């Protein structure tokens, strides 16, 4: 077993590719835990960011600056009474959130956080992602139906129509990105997620800038479709609270409801990961081909540490700005500890970066570690920007009406993505 580990660590492939079930399981567990934590962090960040958009403070009571709020929420939801309406279809009501959650989490098996930082590198990776994420709608539809209530039913109907329509635009946008992978020497493209990023590396360009503005248009279309696909504002028809109270999950409460929330946020992160992988170079740092001297590698590898250092500094400023009242003492200590933790992580990352640099020529453990951190850092950073985009849109825009949503999907996005696909093919053939 140890041999397996070592052989895998020595290899340059994913655990799936290395035929290493144990390592794959560990990866899956890491990803599950990581995504759950990310969802909690996202929850906190969304509430805080939204609050500051809206000139309020957001959660401030549970922990310093509400840092423990997601944990408190999760506890509350777990302890809440779980109500199943008497008229509901018990079995389907029970299984609906599970379907949504499974679909949302299964997608993560093919998301490449780095060239070997993925559970597996399927050769139909992107197809698998689209397929599994399209199963997520089943959870919503079935939940709305099983509630046996009018608002959830309308929410479910809206949701199914919306997802089926936007999936087409989304798929076509994805196809145009896949098409771009094939404009290389061998002339064959790839459906593998890792292969797509590698192809961007080889061609020396993120696909968002390829055949400007074709890549950009496809990317924008994909982003619109992905917001619709995840039922987020301004396309949050399925759970429009001012119209349908809570849409498809009106009748849900407690843990089951929190599963829906979990899967919604997990799906948001998943689709953002697709966008990052397909158009924004996945794990690649900016300018990997232009600035590729070892010196530049070192400079860019300092970013993770510096980011954490910045966060720690913000937290320390927060400590300093806390009121000097004695009732804030515990909060103060807590925030200071949090800041110290962030600072410690920052130091660790910086140390690794420096250690990895000194022996960057050979494949020492430190260098491999540094590389892995870099990959994951750039990937997560790009995804985090998308998360901010989601929040920003939610804070700024009103909600579309259902017919307008469908009109945009069918009459705007679909023709544009089709056109982009055809143009990409033509331009690609002419250029290559």
């Amino acid at each position, binding site marked *: 077993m140890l041999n397996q580990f070592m052989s895998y660590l020595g290899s340059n492939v994913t655990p799936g590719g290395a035929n290493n079930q144990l390592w*794959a399981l560990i990866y899956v567990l890491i990803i599950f835990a990581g995504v759950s934590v990310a969802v909690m962090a996202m929850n906190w960040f969304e509430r805080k960011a939204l609050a500051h958009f809206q000139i309020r403070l957001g959660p401030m009571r549970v922990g310093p600056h509400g840092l423990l709020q997601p944990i408190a929420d999760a506890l509350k939801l777990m302890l809440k009474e779980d109500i199943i309406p008497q008229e509901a279809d018990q079995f389907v009501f029970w299984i609906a959130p599970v379907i949504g959650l*499974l679909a949302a989490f*299964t997608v993560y098996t093919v998301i490449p956080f780095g060239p070997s930082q993925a559970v597996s590198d399927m*050769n139909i990776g992107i*197809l698998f992602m689209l397929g599994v994420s399209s199963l997520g709608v089943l959870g919503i*539809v079935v939940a709305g139906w099983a509630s046996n209530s009018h608002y959830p039913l309308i929410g479910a109907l809206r949701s199914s129509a919306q997802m089926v329509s936007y999936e087409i635009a989304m798929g076509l946008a994805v196809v145009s990105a896949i098409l771009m992978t094939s404009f290389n020497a061998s002339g064959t493209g790839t459906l593998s997620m890792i292969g797509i990023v590698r192809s961007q590396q080889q061609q020396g360009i993120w696909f968002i800038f390829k055949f400007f503005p074709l890549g950009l248009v496809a990317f924008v279309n994909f982003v619109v479709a992905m917001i619709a696909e995840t039922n987020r504002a301004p396309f949050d028809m399925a759970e429009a609270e001012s119209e349908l109270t809570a849409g498809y999950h009106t009748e849900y409460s407690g843990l089951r409801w929190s599963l829906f929330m979990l899967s919604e946020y997990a799906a948001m992160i998943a689709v953002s990961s697709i966008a990052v992988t397909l158009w924004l170079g996945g794990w690649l740092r900016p300018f990997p081909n232009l600035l590729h001297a070892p010196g530049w590698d070192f400079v860019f590898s300092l970013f993770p540490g510096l980011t954490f250092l910045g966060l720690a500094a913000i937290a320390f400023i927060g400590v300093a700005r806390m009121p000097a009242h004695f009732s804030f003492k515990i909060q103060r200590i807590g925030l200071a500890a949090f800041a110290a933790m962030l600072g410690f992580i920052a130091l660790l990352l910086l140390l690794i970066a420096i250690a990895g640099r000194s022996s960057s020529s050979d494949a020492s453990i430190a260098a491999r570690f540094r590389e892995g951190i870099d990959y994951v850092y750039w990937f997560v950073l790009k995804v985090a920007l998308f998360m901010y985009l989601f929040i920003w849109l939610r804070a700024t825009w009103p909600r579309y009406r259902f017919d307008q949503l469908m009109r945009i999907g069918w009459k705007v996005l679909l023709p544009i993505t089709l056109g982009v696909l055809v143009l990409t093919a033509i331009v690609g053939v002419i250029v290559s």
Partner: protein
Amino acid sequence: MIPLFIWALDSPLQHPAGIAAFLISVVAPVNGEMAPVATPFFFYLLSGLAVAGGFFVVTRHNPVHCALALIVTLIAVAHLYLMLYAPFVAGVQIIVYAGGIMVLFLFVIMLVNIERASKDRRFNRIWPVGLAAACALMGLFVSAFVKGRGLFPDRMIKLPEASNTQEIATALYGEAGRMGQYTFAFEIASLLLLVAILGAVIMTKKRI
């Protein structure tokens, strides 16, 4: 859902395996060769799921339950494709059937009056006809099973899975200016679908 979960843990590149496969592989020494693990086990598991799903489709009174059972069947079949080293077909099966068509099915089922449909008797007078058809189909399958390899000798070759997608593309579209084996049929099918789409639009739209 179980097959999905298994798939989550697995790398279809080498073999469709999951928790069970993992347990087996921990117990048994892994040989260097990339051989599928516990193939019969998963084959029977998936086949059983597919058959059970099909059984529920025809027996459940509630149309939504039927649809859910059908989804289980479709996913199980997708996994069978995977075991046959046809990942592209499996992916398309899930996207198109489980993710697209079944959602539309559910959409329609929700719009209609389920109360009445579920009260009707499932097995009405034409059940002998159905039984006869099922028996005939069964006979066909049995004969194919008995004749076995003799029927499809050239299809038992193990194809390289990694290039599965490319081979489908070659068969459909051809390569280097040469028409593929099924290009014509493929184009005809897409034309038919286009006509069907237009027809559906015209039939539903009151004013164009």
